[in-house]
């Protein structure tokens, strides 16, 4: 493979000597320049992505990352390509996680809420704890759009969920 030119596009700023912060990648400590995104910080540390990296522009949902900060009880979720590292950040990438995904024939299903009950009865177990909204890396009001579906207001649900990038990728019956 050709020699790596580190001034190439993405990697450029990582070479300049900068203030370092400590991050913990799946428990292991690395010193990385601050102001890098998680993705670039992990590459700086020597990781090469196979999974967990996609468009690098915040739209494909491949790089969902869970992280915690010292002294903070919250669990945060962000996109690795969009979230800037912070000192002491503990992070791990979202593993493959199969969502319950219905198959359907768009021509054959109607627009009544019962079509949704049939496909996703679990919606009706929602307790409005709002954890979904809190973890959404796209700032989508998940709880509200789930509510809208239950109320049969699909237009509102579509609008509210429009920016979803499907970071928990709903796989189903996939070979390979």
């Amino acid at each position, binding site marked *: 493979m050709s020699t790596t030119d580190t001034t190439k596009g993405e990697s450029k700023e990582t070479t300049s000597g900068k203030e370092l912060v400590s991050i913990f990648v799946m428990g292991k400590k690395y010193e990385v320049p601050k102001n890098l995104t998680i993705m670039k910080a992990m590459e700086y540390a020597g990781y090469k992505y196979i999974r967990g990296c996609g468009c690098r522009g915040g739209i494909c949902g491949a790089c969902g990352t869970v992280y915690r900060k010292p002294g903070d009880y919250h669990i945060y979720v962000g996109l690795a390509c969009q979230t800037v590292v912070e000192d002491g950040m503990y992070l791990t990438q979202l593993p493959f996680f199969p969502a319950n995904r219905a198959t359907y024939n768009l021509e054959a299903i109607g627009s*009544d*809420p019962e079509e949704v009950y049939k496909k996703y009865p679990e919606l*009706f177990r*929602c*307790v*409005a*704890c*709002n954890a979904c909204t*809190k973890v959404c890396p796209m700032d989508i009001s998940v*709880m*509200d759009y*789930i*509510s809208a579906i*239950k*109320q*049969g*207001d699909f237009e509102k649900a579509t609008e509210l969920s429009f920016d979803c990038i499907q970071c928990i990728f709903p796989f189903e019956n996939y070979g390979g």
Partner: protein
Amino acid sequence: MKISYYPGCTLKTKAKNMDCPGVAALNALGVELVELPRWNCCGAVFSLADDDLLHLLAPVRDLIRVVEQGDNKLVVACSMCYNTLARANLLMRENSEKRHTINTFMEEERDYNGEVEVVHLLSFLRDEIGWEKIKESIKVPLRGLKIAPYYGCTLLRPQSVAIEPPEKRTLFKDLIETMGATVVDFPASTDCCSSYQILSNPDIGIETVSKILESAESWGAEAIVTSCPLCEYNLGKRQEDALRKHDKLKELPTFYFTQLLALALGLGAEVCNFELNHNGVVRLMESKKFLTAA
């Protein structure tokens, strides 16, 4: 007058025939029911496990929406929603320990201390509008219609949230009389319709429904009126199953009180969405000439 209004999921879909005539009727009486922005499902049943606070989050969030609107009263039409919201409200008002835990958990919301008053639409009609005023506005008196008021469980039990004392209940009676119809009080008026058991144990559900229908019929009712979409489903839509099982039973049309009110106020069948009711309601209304009168 404007007042915050919580319709509930079912009223937005299966029970539009309760929501639409209710909103229209109140409008005709000079009240604008303002649907809460961002409301969510209340959870339908109040959580009975003492250590379960998670299921209180949904109704409390709805109450917080009321405060966010700068309002302190919430009108609810669906009986189950009313029961759940009112009980959650009471708990937030009275149990400081649980209130604290819930407020702390919902850090993204403002604190809630039970400031809102949760009112059922029936009580609102009596207390804020008054039977007299309603009577003056009646355009199509439902004369000659014999109606059995069906309260079910959630309007009257438990006592802490009962819309009126169960033994001295008059709300439905007064409303029916105000509309010019005849009240047929019957013993099963406050019996349980089997509620969610219709899903878990459908046979038991149908038996329970049959008894209620039989009771109403034996006292001479021509129709049943209710304020709960689950009661309406069990007594109305599933009535066919009961009729199939019991030869003696006759068809007994089941209405929401909001439909009868809208009709009596002369708003016509259009706002009543009778097509969502499940048994001979239009036939009965036509035979009584209530539909043409408007």
